[in-house]
């Protein structure tokens, strides 16, 4: 459904390009089929790379014999761990500020001990793809299979099989302590305690991991790859023992990321093969490789004990979360910290005790996935809330309203929410939009409704001291160029920067060209992860564009014999405005210009500009640009935006500030469940978020719709099934994601409070949009049947079991 935007029309007049539902600038190339992704370029003399992967999940690597493979005509190179200069380095995830305690081992090719099935063992480069495939089969690897450990709880026990070289499989543990948990439960009239389980999940982006690399004539290894992090150029250079400036990573348009292209995938393999052969190399994973060998969303086991008074006030929450990290550390400590901080959800609870652990096993390694540790605890705490509501005879909305955090309240970690919190409004709106309940069609069919809220951070953890840079310039004809090292993974990351520059410089969107994703040529903008690009690079672009605008207005003021404050820019013209009280986007509040917005915020509204036809009062943008150029006045700027920073929190109590801000939202779902077959049909999803300010409402709506379906897949069907470390669902025939017929009508509602820390008050929504869907579904199914499912995905089989029918 077309998005509803709550109570916003009155303020839209303020902006000319942002806030407008415009097709993204990258959409044309995509509908023509002309956009070149990572696998769409060929170079003369190009080789095809292929990875040999381990057959065992736990084994000792005894020997590798590559002689037969090397003899195969058409094979140019075979590489194993001994050919890699620094085969073992430390994962740093594109961070520039070194923080202790989060490092993991990054082992390029398996050596000594195999830690998961599918681990890379050897690389081949050959003249043709089929020769590379054949060569892989000719490499003889001798393994000594080991027992392994596949259950995180078993892996935590003393004396458990050691997955890696360290004595303990426990990577790290965190705590949150607030109040006195015993006292809290003593005050509770009702206590519910349950254990929840969530599965391993694949990102299932349509574009598998892919890239092509070559050695440039200046000796720089240039890698054009599907990645969310071009700043892995540093990590790749470290592996090869090269200076960082000798590796360049380019990210063309990426065919979906969702966190799965946050860690290094093909980049190091490509660099090694290029360095060894001196020839261009192309490497694309098969779908099966993608599913067995890239990082997954962590499965969790979560024990939650939640207590409330008889009037529905939460007084105590005790939670223990155990996450299965799989064979390598990767981002597991960070994902776990996100879960820890967000374990209590958007609720105010006096007494809290949270203990979390992430543990190595011999399963596929887990790392970032949309929501980054948010979806797992949300399933648990939102299920708990409905269980309490049921016992207290309160409606799901009522119990939530009695416990939501509001602006100015402190989370369990002591962090005060100083920015806008509109969770309650989002909950009211989704239930209102769900409308009157549907009628069941036939006797076995039951209708149920569920609701779930979440708060999800956007922007990286503050102790990472995150930065982004962006370059904005005006050319002699008045056209605008933005250079910013963002990776566009399909969320409109590049296009929103174009909108911001167009807004500030008074040109149509079509006049802006954006260069993205090149570690050598675009200012580094950090990772396209953590729902951070609009926030970080949007702010950097805004900052740079404002400097250019200020210079432009200074010159125009000379030409028009006025002062810059009297000028405005629109449609490639600079003109004197008569009664303008506020300069666009500068957030200066003038009491005369304030309007009351939706009863909740004071918004700045520019007074309508009045321009007459007097040419003394108007000058073409192009003429001002030329005048600036003639005098050497700079019409470009590179700006850096620094996120607010904090040092590490206290891990013994969890107290401290980890995130700059959060996005709050609620989803409501109506389902029909067939009691005889256990089949769930989702009739409707309503998703409402406070997006702060929609820079492009079409893109924002796309995130809300797509996020809801991503979350619904988690709730209903997605499951990387592993048995003793072997993936039983290695293709899209077994690993099921929602199709067009599974997708329900999704109604989206955006609240624009203007209260975010992004440009123009925007908040991030890429990840938040998928977090509460699965618990809303679980609550709807429970409402329909009167029994609860404690484990995702909610399949017909689990429903029939819960009903005692099988």
């Amino acid at each position, binding site marked *: 459904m077309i998005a509803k935007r709550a109570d916003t029309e009155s303020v839209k007049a303020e902006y000319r390009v942002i806030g407008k539902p415009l097709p993204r600038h990258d959409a044309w190339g*995509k509908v023509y*089929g002309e956009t070149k992704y990572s696998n*769409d370029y060929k170079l003369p003399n190009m080789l095809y790379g292929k990875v040999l992967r381990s057959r065992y999940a736990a084994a000792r690597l005894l020997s590798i014999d590559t002689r037969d493979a090397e003899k195969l005509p058409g094979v140019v190179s075979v590489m194993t761990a001994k050919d890699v200069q620094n085969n073992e380095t430390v994962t740093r995830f594109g961070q520039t500020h070194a923080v202790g305690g989060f490092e993991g081992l990054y082992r390029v090719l398996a050596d000594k001990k195999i830690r998961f099935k599918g681990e890379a063992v050897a690389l081949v480069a050959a003249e043709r793809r089929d020769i590379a495939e054949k060569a892989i089969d000719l490499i003889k690897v001798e393994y000594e299979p080991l027992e392994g450990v596949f259950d995180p709880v078993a892996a935590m026990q003393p004396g458990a099989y050691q997955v890696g070289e360290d004595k303990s499989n426990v990577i790290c543990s965190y705590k949150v302590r607030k109040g006195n948990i015993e006292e809290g439960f003593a005050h509770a009239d009702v206590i519910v305690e349950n254990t929840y389980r969530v599965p391993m999940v694949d990102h299932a982006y349509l574009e598998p991991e892919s890239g092509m690399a070559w050695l440039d004539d200046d000796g720089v290894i240039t890698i054009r790859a599907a990645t969310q992090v071009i700043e892995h150029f540093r990590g790749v250079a470290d592996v090869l023992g090269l200076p960082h400036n000798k590796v360049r990573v380019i990210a063309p348009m990426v065919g979906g990321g969702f966190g799965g292209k946050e860690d290094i995938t093909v980049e190091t393999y490509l660099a090694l093969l290029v360095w060894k052969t001196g020839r261009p190399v192309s490497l694309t994973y098969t779908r099966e490789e993608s599913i067995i060998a890239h990082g997954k969303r962590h499965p969790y086991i979560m024990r939650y004990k939640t207590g409330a008074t008889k009037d529905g006030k939460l007084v105590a929450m005790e939670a223990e979360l155990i996450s299965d990290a799989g064979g390598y550390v990767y981002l597991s400590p960070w994902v776990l910290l996100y879960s820890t901080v967000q374990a209590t959800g958007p609720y105010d609870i006096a007494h809290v005790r949270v203990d979390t652990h992430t543990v190595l096993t011999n399963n596929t390694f887990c790392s970032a996935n949309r929501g980054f540790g948010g979806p797992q605890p949300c399933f648990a705490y939102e299920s708990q809330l409905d269980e309490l509501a049921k016992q207290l005879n309160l409606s799901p909305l009522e119990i939530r309203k009695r416990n939501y955090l509001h602006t100015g309240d402190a989370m369990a970690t002591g962090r005060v929410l100083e920015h806008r919190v509109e969770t309650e409004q989002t909950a009211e709106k989704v239930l209102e939009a769900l409308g009157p309940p549907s009628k069941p069609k036939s006797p076995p069919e039951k209708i149920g409704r569920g609701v779930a809220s979440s708060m999800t951070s956007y922007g990286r953890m503050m102790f990472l001291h995150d930065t982004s840079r962006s370059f904005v310039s005006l050319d002699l004809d008045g056209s605008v160029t933005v250079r910013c090292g963002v990776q566009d993974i*399909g969320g409109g990351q590049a296009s929103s920067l174009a909108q911001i520059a167009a807004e500030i410089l008074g040109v149509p969107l079509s006049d802006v060209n954006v260069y993205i994703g090149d570690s050598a040529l675009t200012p580094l903008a950090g990772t396209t992860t953590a729902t951070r690009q609009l926030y970080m690079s949007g702010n950097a672009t805004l900052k740079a564009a404002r400097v250019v605008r200020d210079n432009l207005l200074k010159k125009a003021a000379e030409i028009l014999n006025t002062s810059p404050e009297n000028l405005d820019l629109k449609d490639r013209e600079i003109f004197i405005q008569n009664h303008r009280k506020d300069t666009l986007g500068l957030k200066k509040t003038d009491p005369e210009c304030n309007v009351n917005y939706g009863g909740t915020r004071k918004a700045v509204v520019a007074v309508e500009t009045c321009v007459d036809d007097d040419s003394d009062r108007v000058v073409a943008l192009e003429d001002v640009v030329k005048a600036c150029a003639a005098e050497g006045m700079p019409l470009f700027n590179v700006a850096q935006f620094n996120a607010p920073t904090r040092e590490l929190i206290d891990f013994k109590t969890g107290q401290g500030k980890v995130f700059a801000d959060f996005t709050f939202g609620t989803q409501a779902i109506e389902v029909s469940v067939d009691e005889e077959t256990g089949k769930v049909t989702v009739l409707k999803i309503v998703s409402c978020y406070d997006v702060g300010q929609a820079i492009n409402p079409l893109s924002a709506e*796309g995130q809300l719709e797509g996020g809801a379906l991503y979350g619904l897949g988690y709730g209903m069907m997605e499951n990387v099934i592993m048995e003793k470390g072997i993936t039983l669902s290695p293709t899209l025939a077994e690993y099921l994601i929602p*199709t067009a017929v599974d997708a329900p009508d999704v109604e989206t509602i955006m609240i624009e409070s203007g209260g975010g820390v992004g440009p123009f008050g925007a908040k991030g929504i890429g990840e938040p949009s998928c977090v509460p869907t699965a618990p809303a579904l679980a609550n709807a199914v429970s409402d329909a049947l009167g029994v609860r499912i404690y484990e995702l995905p909610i399949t017909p089989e689990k429903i029939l079991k819960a009903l005692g029918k099988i």
Partner: protein
Amino acid sequence: MKKYTIHLTVNGEKHTLEVYPNALLLNVIREDIGLTGTKYACGTGQCGACTVEVNGEPVLGCMTLAVAVDGAEIKTIEGLAQPDGTLDPLQEAFLDTNAVQCGFCTSGMILIGKDLLNKNPSPSESEIRNHIKGNLCRCTGYNGITRAILKCSK
């Protein structure tokens, strides 16, 4: 392995190609002819990203041997717009309804959508969803795509 000579007419242009008997139509289109709008995404016929039109019918390029379609008329995403760049109404609708995010499924989605509209000029929403269910999209939630095809339904 012996190569075979085949003739394909792709987007109105005739090609004579020397291909191995195991060459997939997807790879021939992408690598020999150089039209990369058709995508490799699963390789096993489960996602629809490699959909092309062969003699008027939608075909999965990753499941079709090039030698098996010798002599065929093929249309790919690059052949949908007019030579002057004028978009097909369905491509236009994809822009208007926000049906495009990462774009990797877009070529296949547009071709399967065209196939439906060719066979049934006025499909309902459920007919649309049913027809495109073999084509996966991970970004949009299918609503924008469904709206786009519905917009072209007469």
